């Protein structure tokens, strides 16, 4: 009986850890779209990412390689006409999910722009990245799920405005 209980506890612990590391765009963030002047809503799962990589051009091979390992990409970006269209509670609903299993590697606040970058460890590499950017009139959340290393991102430094990440 004891081994069964032990196995059940272990399974529960592992599954709760996996659940803790999974990230979803909160509903209250989704509800900001009608207030926004411009919004971007992108949800790409594994099969769609694979399909997209098949349509990458010859000059997009590095992007193709980066995308081929990813599990999902979620982007929510809102631009508002005036300030105060989203609250701290909205941003906090994102942070709450990132408290377990994620590490905040960058947190910058300057001129009303607050950018945080969270990473998830998966064995020896990064298993995902969340970028949370809150400005006075803008809010952006980017979630890249899957093995993504900073070297690959730095390889894309010259493309798409992605900078080379300093070591």
């Amino acid at each position, binding site marked *: 009986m004891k081994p069964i209980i032990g196995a059940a506890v272990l399974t529960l612990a592992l599954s709760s850890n996996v659940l803790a590391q999974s990230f979803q765009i909160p509903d209250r963030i989704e509800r900001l779209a009608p207030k926004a002047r411009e919004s971007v809503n992108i949800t790409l799962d594994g099969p769609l990412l694979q399909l997209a*990589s098949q349509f990458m051009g010859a000059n997009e091979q590095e992007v193709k390689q980066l995308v081929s390992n990813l599990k999902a990409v979620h*982007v929510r970006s809102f631009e508002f006409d005036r300030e105060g269209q989203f609250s701290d509670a909205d941003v906090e609903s994102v942070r709450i999910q990132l408290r377990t299993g994620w590490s905040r590697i960058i947190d*910058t606040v300057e001129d009303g722009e607050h*950018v945080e970058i969270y990473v998830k460890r998966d064995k020896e590499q990064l298993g995902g990245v969340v*970028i949370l950017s809150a400005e006075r009139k803008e809010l*952006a959340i*980017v979630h890249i799920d899957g093995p993504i290393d900073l070297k690959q991102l730095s390889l894309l430094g010259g493309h*798409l*405005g992605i*900078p080379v990440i300093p070591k």
Partner: protein
Amino acid sequence: MRPREQHELDEALREAFRQVDPPPGFADRVVRRASRGPVRTIGGRAGLRWAAAAVLVIAVSGGLWYRAEERRRIEGEEARRQVLLSLQIAGSKLSAVQMKINRHEESRQ
């Protein structure tokens, strides 16, 4: 033509067109065969129907395949556009952060 030659030709024609009775039972056989209907051939009306059906199946299959491929192409192009836009947004945010870090380090030096 000389009279003798003319006579020989007349005789030959007469022999060729001589009335001959049909073999016994010929009329019955003709009536029996006629009552069985027309003879079926491979290249007849049935063959034409099969060919038309085959062409129709090929045309419909081709049309469906083309539509599926077209839909897949549109979805693929749209997914590609979204991937590039996602990376652009992520890149712009990272770029902004990098500039801030660089400014901060420069001010410390």
